């Protein structure tokens, strides 16, 4: 079965600094990969997705992620963090099968932004 690991539970960065959130997955074939953001008391918003093709994907709010098959990673990056980026970030993997489209999520990384 597939699994997702987000090694960093909490990360604090200064506003304007760069950001990288780590995500590692376990799955035998090429998975579908996603990053979601969740603000307090709200649902999940899709930031970006990778299905195939170019391994560097661009998302909303200035985020990007790079799929590295050799490292089973899909790390999220942003060159300059804004205070409004403070939230919880979840990496997820989807596995294609005829039965359904379930997503498996990591435990999340809480991002705090210092002024």
């Amino acid at each position, binding site marked *: 079965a597939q699994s*997702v690991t987000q090694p960093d539970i909490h990360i604090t960065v200064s506003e304007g600094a760069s950001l990288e959130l780590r995500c590692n997955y376990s799955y035998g074939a090429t998975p*579908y990969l*996603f990053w*979601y953001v969740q603000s307090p*008391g*709200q*649902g*999940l*918003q*899709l930031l970006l*997705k990778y*299905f195939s093709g170019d391994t560097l994907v661009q998302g909303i709010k200035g985020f990007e992620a790079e799929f590295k098959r050799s490292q089973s990673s899909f790390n999220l990056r942003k060159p300059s963090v804004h205070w409004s980026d403070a939230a919880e970030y*979840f990496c*997820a993997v*989807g596995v294609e099968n005829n*039965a*359904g*489209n*379930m*997503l*498996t*999520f*990591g*435990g*999340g990384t809480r991002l705090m932004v210092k002024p």
Partner: protein
Amino acid sequence: DAGVTQSPTHLIKTRGQQVTLRCSPKSGHDTVSWYQQALGQGPQFIFQYYEEEERQRGNFPDRFSGHQFPNYSSELNVNALLLGDSALYLCASSQIRQGYEQYFGPGTRLTVT
């Protein structure tokens, strides 16, 4: 265009009771998935409905059941509530041909006392 809506927003129940949560998918979507998010954890897949049938199920007991209506809206039912069922329940909708493009609702916060 309304996104995914869920009701109620919050709910408090007592152990042993039953609860029903509701979800209306985004316009044009025909598939609904339910996830449970315990405090401090990532969402866990409960099940997915398409064409009014359960299409896939995660590792949840039979106390968790669901239904999808002809208008694609869905209900999640939980019987014999346990304290451990306290969580945020998220509904996500998608189109069957783009099943992984799942749009999430704001969730229902269930507290079991």
